């Protein structure tokens, strides 16, 4: 037993020594003079970040020449179906961060590309080959770039690169390819203006890839707006409060927010808050900025709306014994809501468009996506696609505003459901005539509010305080 045991141990020792010898020998036999660092491909998916097979892209291959070695030729190979035909290759050799004077001549042949150097690339150098216009196999999948190289001792295999993930052609890409081949599209694009702003291929891809950005825009403004309305109402009431300090606070809030660009407010929120160690998700922060900004405008709209209700109604309400809050919530506000709907809708449209400013701080919204597409393609069409996404929301809303305004004007002219409106009331609201634009109306209402003379603005609060 004991004997057998030592024998086994002896064998193990021999084995270990043998193994060590083999291991020690291995590198000297198979040590690579040229180590593959990596191979990457430029994304060629229109409006995406994928690498698609069968469509031209650029392959960047990097390798390092090891100690005491020199490399005079490199051959890269792609799996069956990949092609280097018609490519142009840029050869860069670097020592550390500075360029070395190395020139190379590339000879593409199907899925092989041979680059021979004018003088051997010496030890320690980083070799970069950028092959423009190559294609990966159109089936997609993980692609490994292999090959061979020539050093002093002859041809040797190159270590395989880490796989590059490629995808098969998508229906969208096929549609683009069809457009690419159409002579009509080509003629259309030949016109510099049409080609720059309305390139059909890009319009198609942009419409697809902008959808997430569009949804984020909608989400931001739809979530922000209810908050803006609540905040706006709060500040509207504060502005007509009988307490001077409260009025001051509200005035400061509204004036600062209305008097500075939204862009600046975005910067302060996005760069300022994290510095105070307040870290909020970017999209949530976007909702916050839009809500706060819109609330200032809404506060003014609501205040003007409340103050445009004739003073007589406060008197009438108090004469039947209603309290201030009863008057506000059952008499004044319901009428105010009707009056401000068009202007609030216009403001909603503005806020929706304002979300575009969030692109400058990295919120992945509509403008961000179109900016990326434009910078990749050097073409303005993605912006046109973005315009379509804005219009698809704003046009129906603008139409709605017009319809509501017409109905209101109609009602106030004596048409509509209120047939028995008295002459005096009609005269009082006469200013809001049919032809008046919503913006003009706000200005009028605001002028009314800031002017101390007209009864509704200065007397409503004081009357309310008597109640």
């Amino acid at each position: 037993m004991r004997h057998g045991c030592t024998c086994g141990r002896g064998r193990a020792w021999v084995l270990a020594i043998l193994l060590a010898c083999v291991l020690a020998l291995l590198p000297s036999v198979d040590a690579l003079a040229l180590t593959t660092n990596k191979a990457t491909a430029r994304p060629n998916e229109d409006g995406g970040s994928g690498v698609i097979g069968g469509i031209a892209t650029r392959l960047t291959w990097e390798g390092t020449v090891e100690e005491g070695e020199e490399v005079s030729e490199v051959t890269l190979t792609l799996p069956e179906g990949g092609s280097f035909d018609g490519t142009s290759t840029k050869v860069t050799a670097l020592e550390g961060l500075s360029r070395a004077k190395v020139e190379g001549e590339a000879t593409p042949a199907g899925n092989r590309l041979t680059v021979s150097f004018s003088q051997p690339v010496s030890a320690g150098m980083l070799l970069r080959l950028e092959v423009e216009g190559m294609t990966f196999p159109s089936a997609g999948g993980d692609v490994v770039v292999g090959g061979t190289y020539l050093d002093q001792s002859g041809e040797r295999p190159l270590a395989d690169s880490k796989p590059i993930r490629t995808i098969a052609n998508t229906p969208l890409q096929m549609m683009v390819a069809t457009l690419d081949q159409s002579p009509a599209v080509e003629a259309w694009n030949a016109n510099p203006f049409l080609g720059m702003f309305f390139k059909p291929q890009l319009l198609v891809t942009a419409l697809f890839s902008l959808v997430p950005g569009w949804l984020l825009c909608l989400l931001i403004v739809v979530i922000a707006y209810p908050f803006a309305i609540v905040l706006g109402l709060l500040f509207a009431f504060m502005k007509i409060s009988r307490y001077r300090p409260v009025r001051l606070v509200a005035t400061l809030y509204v004036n600062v927010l209305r008097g500075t660009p939204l862009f600046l407010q975005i910067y302060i929120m996005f760069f300022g808050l994290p510095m105070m160690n307040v870290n909020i998700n970017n999209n949530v922060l976007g909702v916050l900025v839009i809500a706060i900004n819109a609330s200032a405008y809404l506060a003014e709209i609501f205040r003007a709306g409340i103050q445009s209700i004739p003073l007589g109604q406060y008197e009438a309400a108090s004469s039947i014994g209603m309290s201030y809050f009863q008057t506000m919530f059952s008499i004044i506000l319901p009428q105010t809501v009707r009056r401000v709907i068009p202007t609030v809708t216009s403001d909603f449209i503005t806020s929706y468009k304002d979300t575009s400013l969030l692109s400058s701080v990295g919120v992945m919204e509509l403008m961000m996506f179109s900016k990326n597409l434009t910078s990749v393609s050097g073409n303005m069409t993605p912006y046109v696609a973005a315009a379509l996404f804005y219009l698809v929301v704003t046009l129906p809303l603008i139409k709605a505003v017009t319809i509501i305004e017409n109905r209101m004007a109609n009602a106030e002219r004596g048409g509509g459901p209120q047939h028995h409106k008295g002459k005096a009331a009609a005269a009082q609201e006469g200013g809001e005539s049919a032809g008046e634009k919503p913006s003009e109306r706000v200005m009028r209402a605001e002028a009314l509010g800031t002017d101390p003379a007209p009864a509704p603005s200065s007397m409503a609060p004081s009357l309310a305080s008597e109640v």
Partner: protein
Amino acid sequence: MSGHAITRRDLIGAVATSVSGLMLAACGSSPDTAPGDTDGAPYALVSEGTLTCVSDMAFPPMDYMDGDTCTGYEVELMEAIAAKMGLECVWLPPTKFDTIIPLIKQGGKADVGASSFTITDERKEEVDFTNAYLDSNQGVATLKSASVKDEGDLDAEGKRIAVQSGTTGEMWAQENLTKATIVSLDDPVQAMAGMSTGLYDAVAADLPVVSYLCTQSYTDCEVSLEIPTGEQYGLVVSKDNPALTEALNEAYEAVVADGTEAKLQEKWFGAEL
């Protein structure tokens, strides 16, 4: 096929220089007295007697605004080049980086785009480049306090990499950090400001600029990756104006020859590159 890319470019440069020299000589004016030669110049300029240049002026120390004056290595280099051509160098107001090439291509606004453009095949389809005037590489900056600094860790879901829209830094990030979200901004200063407040995990841009910004303005950040790409900057000229490209190459040679370039590099980079 064009592993000759470099060979050919250098060759064309050399040939262009000598040919234009010969042409000028043939016209009866000596090639080394470029100033004052403008009346006979075969190239078109947006406005007579001035070289109208355009840059984003957001790329210190290459080109940036110091108060309301344009300054930087590139700005002074262009002034030296213009002087050699007997022209006055005029800068358009800062223009967004990704719109400069379309602007030069469309023509009529500026003669030369000088905004640290790396010479790439893609860009060459749109515009002409002069010979390279500076070598560059890519750099990735992170906060000094950041836990994630190397390339493998930055290439992960949920990481946000800020880049300047339309730059080689953007292309590098899209190609090498495929899992991360790439956020394209208008200029690298915006990117650095965002990163130093924690909006982004890293910034990828040209190395001279990242290292300048890390040492000068954003001292809480550092260059955590130096990526050797061996890219080279060239001036951007419209394809309709090849004579100007040649004239610029020639004037640049003169600026190198008389030592002005070395002086400017000493001034702006602290060393001759």
